[in-house]
């Protein structure tokens, strides 16, 4: 459904994207992860033809965004972090103006979508009086008109309260279930990605450093919270077993490592072990590892 091939982009001579490629299959929810400035929004900007790529290609439903942007964008609905509407107009008028740019504004279809996003009571109020959650639901309504095949969501749950986040997540999952909607989800909320996405890509400094299924990302390497003194012996043993630091007193070892063997080795070398607790590597650990924020 969406194919991104070898995208490169420079801002003021600095590489913002370096050969980013990935593919989102029809009906899939795909997460794009990365810390601020990693290149997620630039990627989305190029997909939406708002940012010009230095090189590379983007295809939406087989149509090149670079060569036929209007035709390609017919299939797309998008939501941005903190969506900007015309605050001095009603939600309904905002929908009319924005959807009108895509073609005909169908009143019945619009009413149906407004009802689905639960904005019927306030749709004729000025957007300036909307809460953040209501603005996000209006953004969702405009993205769903007229009938997109793929939704591009740029940090859509940013600033929403837990209730709003859950509502949004359930809505997107419902769309996929009902209509087989394809979704590209750009977020730094790992729990959201974990709960919603089928596959994820991690971008670091403009490069794609990981791509795979969420389940694959959450690996089964043995992790342990380990406290022992002196720390010199602890570091030596961990190193001998090929372990890596996950965080404060948390370590991960290569697959097949037996934690009792590690503990035995510590005791044999004269260390005083005060805590051994098995821990499971979270998506966050893997994300931080890939995006180089942790210090192994």
């Amino acid at each position, binding site marked *: 459904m969406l194919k991104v091939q070898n995208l490169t982009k420079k*801002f003021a001579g600095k590489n913002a994207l370096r050969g980013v490629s990935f593919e989102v299959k029809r009906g899939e929810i795909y997460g794009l992860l990365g810390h601020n400035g990693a290149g997620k*929004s*630039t990627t989305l*900007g190029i997909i*939406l*033809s*708002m*940012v*010009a790529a230095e090189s590379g290609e983007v295809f939406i439903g087989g149509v090149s965004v670079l060569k036929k*942007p*209007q*035709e*390609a*964008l*017919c299939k*797309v609905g*998008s939501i*941005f*972090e*903190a*969506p*900007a*509407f*015309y605050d*001095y*107009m009603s939600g309904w*008028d905002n929908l*009319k*103006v*924005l959807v*009108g*740019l*895509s*073609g*005909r*504004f169908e009143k019945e279809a619009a009413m149906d979508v407004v009802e689905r996003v639960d904005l019927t009571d306030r749709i004729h109020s000025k957007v300036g009086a909307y809460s953040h959650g209501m603005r996000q639901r209006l953004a969702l309504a*405009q993205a769903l008109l007229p009938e997109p095949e793929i939704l*591009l969501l740029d940090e859509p749950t940013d600033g929403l309260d837990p209730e709003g986040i859950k509502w949004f997540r359930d809505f997107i999952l419902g769309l996929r279930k009902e209509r087989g909607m394809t979704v590209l989800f750009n977020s730094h909320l790992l729990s959201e990605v974990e709960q919603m996405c089928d596959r994820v890509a991690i971008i670091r400094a403009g490069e794609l450093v990981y791509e795979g299924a969420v389940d694959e990302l959450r690996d089964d390497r043995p992790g342990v919270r380990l406290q022992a003194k002196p720390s010199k012996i602890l570091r030596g043993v961990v190193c001998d077993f090929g372990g890596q630091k996950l965080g404060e007193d948390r370590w991960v070892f290569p697959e097949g490592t037996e934690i009792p063997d590690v503990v035995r080795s510590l005791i044999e070398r004269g260390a005083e072990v005060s805590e051994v607790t098995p821990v499971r590597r979270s998506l966050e650990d893997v994300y931080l590892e890939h995006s180089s924020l942790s210090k192994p």
Partner: protein
Amino acid sequence: MMFLRQLQGELKKLFARKRTYIGYVVFLIFEALLLSLWIYVGREQFEDLAKRNFIPVELLSSSLTATYWIMGFSMFLLGSIYFALVAGDIVAKETEDGNMRMVLSRPVSRLRILVLKYCAVIIYTVTFVIFVGLTGYGMALFAMGSEGGLFVWNPEMYILAVYPDRDEAFQRLFTGACFMGLSMCVVTSLGFFFSCLKIKPAAASVMALSVFFIDFVLQNIPFLANHKDVFITFRMANWIYVLQENVPWERIVESYSILMGLCVTLFILGWMVFQSRDFKT
């Protein structure tokens, strides 16, 4: 049809904003003020002037003549501020507020977006000038009655004309207002061009007004009097030739061709800049 629907949306955005109406309100107040000054201060002096020059008093002190003075005095200096303000906002404000990303994510070309916005500000400009003319005339009618023709006097453009026939006078003045509206499109185009650049909306308006006023000042410098033809503001003032007894159509066509060429050039330059821009948070 789709273009017209989209233009309707663009006009809705423009006219739903309160600041769009600042100009209308200020002009209504200004017209009322000018008219009061005309009636209570200027009328007597003009009637004296008319008598001394053997001009029928009812010509000089008529609602149509008052309308001519109101439009002529106010539009260039005061009107230009509102045209620059609205046109300077039209692209830059949406970019600044983030609305432009919502618009650009739609399957519509950047050229079309700009054409829609340009059409909207041009409609605003022309209708604004006609609004000022009609409301000025309406107020003058209310205060001075419908009697009398039109007396036109503009020493800088070497025009002195008298139209005792009311219908002809009205027709001439209305045509003049339409041409004045076209002239003011140049200020609007300047504002629009600067609005397409990567600058704040206020900066776009200030830049447009700066260019306009610099041109106006240069045009009025005595040692440049023989080169007036090269200044935009002189060409813009050519609307007044419609009120000359024998209308110099060649000169009008020449000036308006230059002005329209300038508008098209400014639009194309603005489009080229807008097309090459990246829109990102």
